């Protein structure tokens, strides 16, 4: 799996010119008098893995909420594959091929793991609001849900209610619900938050596996994860993207050092030493 992923990475790098999958143009968001997002501009290429980093309160989650349709931006444009999506409701954005996960697991608590996943594949397979077909007979939906179950290593927990899962299992299911519909652009909001080192390692691999060939945006605090996963890093400080480049370039950027990364990197290095 890893080999394939790496080869795909190389293939992606060689392909040219890159197609822009997701673009933000001077996006602003005001809550009352406070402007949280102050003219964010960003163009993410198709197939790229991008990590968004920044100090607490920089607006990372708000940015995700704007892109995924939870909030409408106050001004500016958001484009998904060249189509305007700003201000659309979440379900419309999802149908255009963008899915997101949540920082706090957001599951169907009283449904089983399998039912959670099956719900999440239904729309993309075209079953819409059907009340004239039995779920049990939807072979493609059931197979896809079983496949996801295997991918997330949750087969043994198939019939457990989502509310009875362990924290790590809930986080895995959270990612499962996000990728289930086959969206091409995936937004993950702190997927590894609150996890142990070994769980985090397993999770990074899981994220790599399930986003092969897709465009990934992730908010992440764990610098190990960021540098291990991202092709490019966007640094968000006070609602503005102050840098957007390869991990090496971002690491070397003096503005980033000053605004945020310096302290975090120092901590990380101190931790390793």
């Amino acid at each position: 799996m890893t080999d394939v992923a790496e080869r795909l990475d190389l293939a992606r790098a060689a392909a040219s010119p890159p197609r822009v999958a997701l673009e933000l143009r001077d996006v602003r968001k005001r809550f009352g008098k406070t402007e949280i997002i102050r003219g964010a501009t960003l163009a993410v290429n198709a197939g790229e893995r991008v990590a968004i980093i920044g100090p607490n309160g920089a607006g990372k989650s708000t940015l995700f909420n704007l892109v995924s349709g939870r909030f409408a931006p106050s001004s500016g444009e958001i484009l998904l594959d060249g189509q305007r999506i700003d201000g659309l409701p979440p379900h419309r954005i999802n149908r255009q091929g963008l899915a997101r996960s949540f920082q706090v697991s957001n599951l169907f608590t009283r449904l089983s793991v399998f039912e959670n996943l099956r719900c999440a594949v239904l729309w993309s397979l075209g079953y819409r609001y059907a009340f004239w077909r039995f779920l049990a007979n939807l072979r493609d939906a059931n197979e896809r849900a079983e496949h996801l179950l295997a991918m997330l290593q949750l087969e043994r927990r198939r019939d457990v209610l989502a509310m009875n899962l362990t924290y790590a299992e809930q986080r895995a299911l959270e990612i499962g619900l996000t990728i289930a519909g086959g969206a091409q652009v995936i937004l993950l909001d702190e997927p590894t938050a609150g996890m142990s080192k070994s769980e985090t390692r397993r999770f990074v691999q899981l994220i790599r596996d399930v986003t092969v060939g897709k465009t990934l945006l992730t908010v992440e605090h764990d610098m190990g994860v960021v540098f291990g996963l991202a092709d490019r890093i966007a640094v968000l400080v006070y609602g503005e993207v102050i840098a957007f480049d390869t991990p090496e370039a971002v690491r070397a950027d003096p503005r980033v050092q000053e605004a945020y990364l310096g302290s975090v990197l120092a901590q990380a290095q101190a931790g390793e030493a």
Partner: protein
Amino acid sequence: MTGARTPDAAPARHEAGRQPPGGAATYHFRPYNVGRWAVWGGYGLLLLLAPLVFSSSLSQTLLSQMGIAIIACLAYNMLLGQGGMLSFGHAVYSGLGAFLAIHALDHVGAGTLHLPVSLLPLAGGAAGLAFAALFGFVTTRKSGTTFAMITLGIGELVYSMSLMLPEFFGGEAGVSSNRVVPPATLGVTFGPQVQVYYLIAAYCFVCTGLMFAFTRTPLGRMLNAVRDNPERVAFIGYDTQRVRWFAFMISGLFMGVAGGLAAINFELATAEMVGAQRSGAYLLFTYLGGSTAFFGPIIGGVLMVLATVVLSELTKAWLLYLGLAFMLMVMYAPAGVAGLVLANLRLAAFGKLRPLLPGYLALLLAGAVAFVGASLMVEMLYHLQLNQALGPMMKYGGVTLDAKGPAAWMVALLLFVAGGLAFERVRRRFVLGWDAAQADIERELRRRDAA
């Protein structure tokens, strides 16, 4: 990858013998793997044989009303249990269905409409569907408290319309009609009550089947998802308002069918049928029966008729008892009668029920003593207030009492306090035993899981 599993067998195996849908999944338990055929066959047989076993004219009347109430409560629970929508105005759809059916019946009788009487409930269903589409479009845009408030408003609106449009709603007296429309088809005139019962039973069986089937469809499952987490539903591509609206319409359809059957059964439709009290009854009995299991509202429907017809005959204070029962249920058994049944079946399946039986017995005894005390006081109070002309002497379960004398009151108070204290004491011990049994079952499940 799914690997060893054949794609055919995997889903089928997991679907068969699963627990009832909705919140019943809270108990991860599969009732004895009883075949689906046995359950549905038994249900059909029950409907078929009931009037033969209970053959008095009173019981036929009751059974007919139960059939109607079962359809209505199941339809109501589509929103409450499966969709997490608390509607305070659902009598609107059964009531309007009843009015439309009764007017249609009039036309059938007058020869201006050619429709067999047996299909009139479908006209009621069409009305329920149409009005649910109309009003639901407004109400289902919101969820939670806002939804509940709007349904309350629409309920009041329709009820007030019934007084403003006497041509359609028939004013105070309502609209009456005659269900016997010659010529008879195959000897069925719908004159005798038993013929009406079998019409209702047939509709009840088919509607129950259809509503159960609904819970197994994409829309039915997404309705559960909307109940659990509407926000996430939007992020997997579904419009939550649409899901709610469609479910609301389907619920309205079945409410309308129930209304149409009621119109045939009573040959009468009154404004009370669209009123807030009827809406409240649907909510109350669906909850009492158990909104978390599919079959809960069936129990609820039966209870509804027993309470409103039988209990109200026995005592004038029946609404008070009903309110008390509702309160106790909300406090101690929020999953309703069906939840109690499922929980005890689960205990039995793990062999944990027998040790709890003495506890149940003690609860029952203490509860009965407290209840007798309380009901004595209630009945004496009612007697003094409402039957002043008859003097202070009254009958209570074959015993003659002096409602004004201190002795009866002392005894009643004593029974109530002693019974209540004993109940609370027994209950605390019982809860400990119950929790221990549940913990054992959880452990056992985990052990099986690991094996």
